């Protein structure tokens, strides 16, 4: 069971993730292919237990050159607004120390398929992905008063 650990700043929890678009789901089966997959960039995700679904900023969509698959309604002040969504899987990186003391990333791609809507937070947004309850509910999230978090799944 992987443990993803990191610091938090007492107001927000960020975690590094990778996003595997639907066209590359087969890469998840082969770590060698995964490390060579184009568009595989580390993204900054904000953990948000108030969000029902995981979503991706418009900025990250452009960065990864993702193609939309369909549309989904998102609740807002004036009723739902309609956004493109993308089919993808989320992966977490666990840094493992090797015998020489270097920390190598090990990817853990979740089996769960996500239909994640796009939303625009402007280019100044300090995250790429909003990690919602569809992902968080598969594991155990612990936020510690000592300034660290752990997500185990």
């Amino acid at each position: 069971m992987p443990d993803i650990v990191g610091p938090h700043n007492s107001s927000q929890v960020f975690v590094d993730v990778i996003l595997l678009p639907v066209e590359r789901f087969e890469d998840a089966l082969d770590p060698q292919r995964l490390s060579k997959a184009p568009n595989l960039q580390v993204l900054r995700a904000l953990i948000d237990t108030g969000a029902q679904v995981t979503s991706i900023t418009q900025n990250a969509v452009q960065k990864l050159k993702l193609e939309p698959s369909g549309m989904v309604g998102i609740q807002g002040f004036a009723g739902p607004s309609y956004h493109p969504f993308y089919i993808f899987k989320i992966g977490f990186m666990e840094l493992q120390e090797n015998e020489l003391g270097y920390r190598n990333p090990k990817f853990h791609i979740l089996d769960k398929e996500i239909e994640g809507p796009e939303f625009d937070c402007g280019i100044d947004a300090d995250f790429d992905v909003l990690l919602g309850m569809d992902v968080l509910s598969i594991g155990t999230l612990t936020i510690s008063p000592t300034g660290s978090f752990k997500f185990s799944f």
Partner: protein
Amino acid sequence: MVLSAKRDAIAANYEAFEQMLPELLRDAPGKFVLLRDRRLVEVFDSASAAHAAGAARFDDGLFSVQKVKEGAVSLGFFSYARYCRAA
């Protein structure tokens, strides 16, 4: 494939999907439908299966996938944050 053509196809298919939704909710709740030219092509158990079928059948990529479900999703704070506008 031009992205604007894809987005236009998705929007047109979504309009047609909304018309089909009451019937689909009765017959295939929670499933995923593949749509092309405002018509339902096939029903699948997963979004990726629907996407793979669409990619195999339609070289131009002008298809879309929709989940058979009712209602909008909530992004919590970010659903309502004023500086986060709809894409």
